[in-house]
């Protein structure tokens, strides 16, 4: 006999902690701040809303699939995952643990912004390797849409940063 467990919304949030960003495998989608809503709509029926970091993010379809797959693994039969711009992502939505994960991955975490991103804000991004601010931005673009490229004048290493976005 199959027993179906009734999950709470917190159970779903906890379960999604293991679903990682395909481009930054140390970071979960929850810590990234891109899961914007979880609703348990009945027994074995869960609805999830997500929002992309960047409109052109090519990974969003893949991530929708990963979320759905994780929930189905838990035995939930009816799963709906929807991408919306109702609560658009901005870089302040990364959790404290998310910021640490980025650093561990060698990516400078985005500076907290006050609703405005200026070029100056990016100019002296803290080096994730040695912690120095004696750095310069080489390009506001990098290997993925959410990253920029920098150079540290103290430890003489090139590094990538996660862009602050409003």
């Amino acid at each position, binding site marked *: 006999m199959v027993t179906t467990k009734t999950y709470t919304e917190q159970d779903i949030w906890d379960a999604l902690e293991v679903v990682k960003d395909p481009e930054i495998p140390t970071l979960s989608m929850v810590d990234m701040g891109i899961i914007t809503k979880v609703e348990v709509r009945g027994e074995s029926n869960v609805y999830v809303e997500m929002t992309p970091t*960047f*409109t*052109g*993010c*090519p990974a969003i379809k893949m991530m929708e699939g990963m979320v759905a797959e994780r929930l189905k693994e838990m035995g939930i039969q009816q799963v709906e995952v929807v991408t919306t*711009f*109702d609560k*658009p*992502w*901005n870089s302040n939505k990364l959790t404290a643990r998310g910021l640490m994960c980025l650093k561990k991955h060698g990516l400078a975490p985005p500076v907290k912004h006050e609703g405005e*991103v200026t*070029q100056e804000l*990016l100019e002296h991004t803290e080096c994730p390797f040695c912690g120095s601010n004696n750095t310069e931005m*080489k*390009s*506001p*673009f*990098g*290997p993925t*849409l959410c990253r920029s*490229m920098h150079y540290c004048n103290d430890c003489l290493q090139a590094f990538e940063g996660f*862009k602050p*976005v*409003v």
Partner: protein
Amino acid sequence: MFIHPQNFNHMNTNAVKELLYKMADDLLIIGHRNSEWTGLGPILEEDIAFSSMAQDKIGQSQTLFQLLHELGEQEPDIVAFTRNANQFHNAQFLELPNGDYDFSLMRHFLYDVADQLRFEMLATSNYEPLAKVARKIKGELKYHVFHANVWITKLGVANEESHLRLQSALNYAWNYALGLFEEGPFEAQLKADGVFDGEAELKTRWMQAITPVLAKANLSIPDENTWNPVDGGRKGIHSEHLQPLVEEMSEVFRVDPSAEW
């Protein structure tokens, strides 16, 4: 105030569609041109920058085509890949071949400043589905504008050759850039409904934004007596450069509409 699409009368829906089509087509066409720099950029960072901007712009255009789809138009891929050149609403400026890096850079600057300001204006639009998307896109375009401003101000004063190249790119680009602000048949309607404040207002803001950057780069805007906007794009009138671009862009889709890549 939120106005649901269904509550828009016929006239309003057509006005919003016209606005969405020209913005989406601008993004799609410049996105494609930007992607032509992939593998060919003058330095690695620029190759990556133009490729990243291409990805951003094509993604943004897809989002706008999705809004059009919600207003009853066909699926985004169908709209993007099955029309002929005369059905596109982009400004002619954006379909011109990339030419040398100086022209690509100048076009990038003149267009992206305008587009960022356009989305800033639309972030407070009464048409909430568009306002929501605009609030997101305006933040992304900030990075395109940073990139353009850095290179225009650096190369404008770097040496004689870089200065002359940028000045001649600006002279060539200018009348085409003015075509970005070609007015459509629904200007008054869009304004009255609080959807969009209009091309004339956008152009004023654009002039205010580009003037100090060009001054810092020691570049001169052509004399006002010579201004002669290259219009027509918004009505489907295009140069000979658009059709080949459209054919190349849609080649895979036309061979196999179900292809995934």
